[in-house]
């Protein structure tokens, strides 16, 4: 049916490539755009083009940025001796939102996963090691995800960093804030008990 309206069909096809967006939602979004004034559509297309034109990876930490080096790397108020390693820029943003970390960052853009063909050379581990070699960093906080792949990446990094005499720490895991124990799944409670600590 859509075949007779090629420009519409094309937009639906493009939109349905988005994660979490299927054919139905794509059609709905396309109709929404159709009803919007042309200015809105132009604003959207410009925003998308700008995103691709302006954003690059910071040459120090590999976070996404418009200025190179990024604001986080050039800021004067950050602790030079502390470095937090994350898998993706989204994870960095999550830690920033918590205002709990005042050191610098390093984004790996992935985790080790042999099944998907991702090895140490496919993520930004080499530049991380270069940074550590410069000698200012005293502690590396490994904040990779708590998946099988994230854990393995953390183990790999710990192995690599230890000989440099730098302290390696891992993000703690356990019970989420404001939750009651009885509603937490067993695996999480189990890990929290394993990782208990002294008052």
């Amino acid at each position: 049916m859509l075949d007779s309206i090629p420009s519409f069909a094309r937009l639906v096809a493009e939109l349905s490539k988005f994660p979490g967006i299927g054919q139905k939602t794509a059609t709905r979004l396309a109709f929404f755009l159709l009803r919007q004034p042309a200015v809105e559509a132009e604003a959207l297309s410009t925003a998308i083009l700008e995103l691709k034109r302006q954003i690059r990876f910071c040459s120090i930490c590999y976070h996404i940025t418009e200025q190179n080096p990024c604001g986080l790397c050039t800021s004067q108020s950050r602790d030079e001796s502390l470095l937090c390693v994350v898998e993706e820029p989204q994870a960095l943003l999550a830690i920033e939102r918590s205002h709990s970390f005042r050191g610098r960052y390093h984004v790996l853009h992935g985790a080790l996963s042999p099944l998907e063909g991702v090895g140490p050379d496919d993520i930004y581990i080499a530049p991380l090691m270069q940074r550590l070699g410069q000698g200012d960093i005293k502690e590396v906080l490994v904040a990779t995800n708590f998946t099988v792949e994230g854990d393995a990446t953390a183990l790999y990094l710990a192995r690599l960093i230890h000989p440099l005499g730098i302290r390696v720490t891992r993000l703690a895991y356990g019970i989420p804030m404001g939750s009651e124990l009885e509603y937490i799944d067993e695996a999480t409670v189990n890990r929290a008990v394993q990782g208990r600590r002294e008052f």
Partner: protein
Amino acid sequence: MILNNLALLRFRNLIEVNQDWNQNFNIIWGKNAQGKTNLLEAIYLLGYVKSFRPARHHEIICQHEEQAFLKGQLTSQGVNHQLEIKLTPNGRTLRVNGKPVQRLKQFFGYLRPVLFTPEELGIVRGYPAGRRSLLDRAILHVEKNYLDYYQQYERILKQRNQLLKRQAREQELQPWTVALINAGVQIRHSRIIYVERIRPLLKDVYQNIVGSSETADCIYSTIQKHEDELKEEFAAELDRKHIKEKQLGQTLVGPHRDDLDFYVDGQSLKTFGSQGQQRSFLLAFKAAQVLDQQMLFGEPPILLLDDLASELDMERQSRFVDFLIKQRTQVFLTTASPEILAEAVKNQAGYYRVDQGKINTLSPE
């Protein structure tokens, strides 16, 4: 635990079933190839989500149909629950008490069937994989974390094997080896604890059913060890096989290769056991599972016995039936010759005749 009602739509040859069940003994009888085992399979599926027969969804779904539907109503610990499974060729939907559940783990634990089928007899003499699966299926329903451990281990194993296949550098392999050890030890630990717990039960119940003084035993790993010791042990095993692993491109030791050994009077059933001993052993292992769950949860699981009569002589059968009556276990039993059982369970059995996929409440005489 009592299964009160089972409703099926388009499940194999059972086009439409809606059946209330007896609280004690359910004798499902009829000629061969009428759908008796399909009924047991449906109940098993509500407990394990996976079938005990190798089957794809499109084989389970009745021919030319889009989907199959299973619903069980049960009472456990005094509470009524409803379990539902919808099967389509590409997937399944699970519901507990009308609410959809995403994770398999949330579906487990309501219905805990223990199954005895003639096909399983091959396990005693066959490859270790069969015995491991026997053990894993038993643990799955008594230890909630076991499924998590297992899925995690399998994932790590696949990743590590991929690296071994690619002849990856030692440095790259190392984190996966550590992860494998950590996850593997959790599985071994759970298995050791379980086996230690059922060994005395197995010994008792074997003597009860067989009516002899023979001692049955099963050994997974000889003594209970601390997790740290298990870690060292696993690491050493991997170390010893390291060169071979690189040559063959796969992980050669670990929980996925372990074996469970069955013994009667100190002799391994794998090589020495008679057919009768193997049958009795397997039955005793299942009975030990019943006792274990009784102790853990304060109620027995339900028992599914496929074609028991063909496997046990009269005397052992009646001993086993006595045991089940004493445990107040709800039993679903298929047989082609119901008269044989009639005496032992006369007053507490419901009879269901299966004929070309239809069930009638009908006793044989």
